């Protein structure tokens, strides 16, 4: 077995997994309130393009003023833009589904179309709108985000495996752990779960259903927006491609929610596993065979097949603790009882 290519495989799986871990954690938080947001790919698009645009304009202004972009400012701007844009997408979704009681599936799909449109539109024409400065690239910001822990990343294979990533990769794990604690151990988390299971009961118990739905959806979408940020600064190294990869990742994030059976801790290993499966076609050499080009697509089916498998399995076994929130996807209207 070739250790180097194994490490490479795991590294690319972790980078891939981090993107969908953000999306997945955000969607878990949203779904716990009973909102099934199929707009996650759209919010990831929004987060990605907003951070790209923010960092791009900042770096552009710096170049014109003749100063070196400040790394911390780069990170801050891109981070706030991504979270804010994602949360804004969540706000549109909550307003339409919670306040105006529109259908969640259709609203979510629309958000995805809308987000994809906004992102690909501005991603393609940002350069022109800014006065034609050539290829959009936010190299300084991307560099800042990919700064690794000094010295630790030099520790041979161990360092490469665990310390060769920017801080966002670790933040994703921290968010997943914090979210697990929040949902399991805190009163607000308990309330949120009550809203998702049975909003009428939660309402009767004095929980503000609307507030919980709005907050969890907006924050959840903000977190998903960070997935877009990570995609832009690390996955594509600070450029934009209109190839729809981010949408694929977004849908995988939604699928991962089911794979994890709504538990944020499972998202940590689940997302890396998806990453391994996704890149498997490049690393079949490790198992002693190489793929011809025409058989690569068959291997690219793996993450989707795995999701389908889990989907079927959870629906067959019907274990109580593995079920989605009981009121998932349903609207709540107090007077309709």
């Amino acid at each position, binding site marked *: 077995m070739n250790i180097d290519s194994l490490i490479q495989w795991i590294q690319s799986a972790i980078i891939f997994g981090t993107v969908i871990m953000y999306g997945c954690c955000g969607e878990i938080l949203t779904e716990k309130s009973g909102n099934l947001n199929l707009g996650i790919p759209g919010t990831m698009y929004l987060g990605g393009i907003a951070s790209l645009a923010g960092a791009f304009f900042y770096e552009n202004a710096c170049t014109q003023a003749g100063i070196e972009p400040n790394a911390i400012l780069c990170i801050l701007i891109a981070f706030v833009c991504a979270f804010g844009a994602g949360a804004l997408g969540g706000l549109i979704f909550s307003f339409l589904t919670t306040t105006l009681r529109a259908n969640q*599936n259709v609203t979510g799909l629309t958000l995805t179309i809308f987000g994809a449109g906004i992102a690909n539109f501005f991603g393609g024409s940002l350069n022109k709108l800014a006065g034609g400065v050539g290829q959009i690239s936010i190299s300084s910001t991307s560099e800042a985000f990919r700064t690794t822990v000094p010295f630790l990343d030099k520790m041979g294979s161990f360092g490469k495996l665990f310390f060769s990533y920017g801080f966002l990769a670790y933040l994703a794990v921290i968010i997943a752990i914090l979210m697990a604690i929040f949902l399991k151990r805190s009163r607000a988390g308990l309330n949120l779960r009550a809203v998702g299971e049975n909003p009428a009961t939660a309402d009767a118990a004095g929980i503000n259903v609307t507030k919980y739905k709005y907050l969890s959806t907006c924050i959840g979408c903000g977190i998903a927006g960070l997935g877009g940020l990570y995609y832009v600064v690390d996955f594509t190294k600070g450029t934009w491609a209109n190839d729809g990869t981010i949408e694929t990742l977004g849908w995988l994030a939604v699928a991962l929610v089911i794979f994890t059976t709504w538990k944020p801790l499972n998202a940590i290993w689940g997302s890396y596993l998806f990453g391994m499966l996704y890149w498997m076609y490049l690393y079949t050499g490790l198992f002693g065979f190489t793929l011809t080009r025409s058989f690569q*697509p068959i291997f690219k089916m793996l993450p989707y097949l795995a999701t389908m498998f889990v989907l079927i399995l959870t*629906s067959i076994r019907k274990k109580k603790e593995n079920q989605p929130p009981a009121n998932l996807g349903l609207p709540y209207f107090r007077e309709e009882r």
Partner: protein
Amino acid sequence: MSAAVTTKTKEPFLRIAKREGLNPWKAWGIRGIALICALLLCALFVFALTKLNPLDVYSSMAKGAFGTTRRIWITLQDTAILLCVALGLAPAFKMKFWNIGGEGQILVGGITTAACMIYLGDLLPLWLNIIIMVVASSLSGALWGLIPALFKAKWNTNETLFTLMMNYIAIQLTAFFVSKWENPFGSNSVGIINPDTKGGWLPEIGSNRMVSPYVLPVAIVLILTVCMFFYLRNSKHGYEISIVGDSENTARYAGMNVKKIVLRTMLISGGICGIAGFINVAGASHTISTNIAGGRGFTAIIVAWLAKFNAFVMIFVSLLLIFLEKGASQIASDHGLNNEASEIMKGIILFFVLASEFFINYRLIFRKKDKKEA
């Protein structure tokens, strides 16, 4: 002043009450107003970016969609293909079966059609091959739709994500066949199938080269539209679909076999999407690639939903969306922006219409003004 405002029983400023049986014309009126608001916002958006008179922009969009005879017919053909997918999705969505797998069902329909064109195109007479293609593509689409429906019926497996995953599997399956059939070798695309013999191409109708290739696809879809309208409105199946969609329990109580209805409807739904793939491959693009569905499986959901599953209204909605698409690519090429603007407009329009449903279903009651204040 403040004393005058506070009343003893505090009534909320705004109340919401359910509206019963709004006159359908009024409901369409509200949707129309929402559409106009959305178009105004779109105009504003385009204006902000291009600094052009919005009226000029819309007229330049019209030029892009209807500028020449050929453009008109290409627009009509694209409308027909989108409409065909929407016709397929409508029964499933009316049944509240979230078939977002239209994309995959189109692709497998396209694959089987391409296979027939490649292997049988120069072998069989055209009419026989077309019959085989129609049957094969609709069967493969139906199979692709039936798999999630089987699991839904048996174990109540979530169909939204299942159909979505089936899309990706279909995409990879298409990629597999594209590299199997690639022509010329190494190009990673199939190229136009049978460019010289036109084996398996849908025949052209009439002699005007600007019109003839587009007539048959449009005609097929129009026939399908009429059938679907009456199927959903007048047939027993259509009635069962709407009952299952409204309340599965009611349907069960009335003695309907819900599982059977779900399976049957998904067969139809997937089958029609497969035919959309057939029309696209044999009638329009004459090739197969992973892009032939091109997001239509998702856009068609919007069409079906906006039209409230009314097949005739779907004609206008799909025409509107295709108009936006063609128009947006026209402004894009005129002003050097990229043509994703149409996706944004689609999103805005649907957001508005979704919001307008609220005003159709509910009534706002404002707090009555205090007498003293008046």
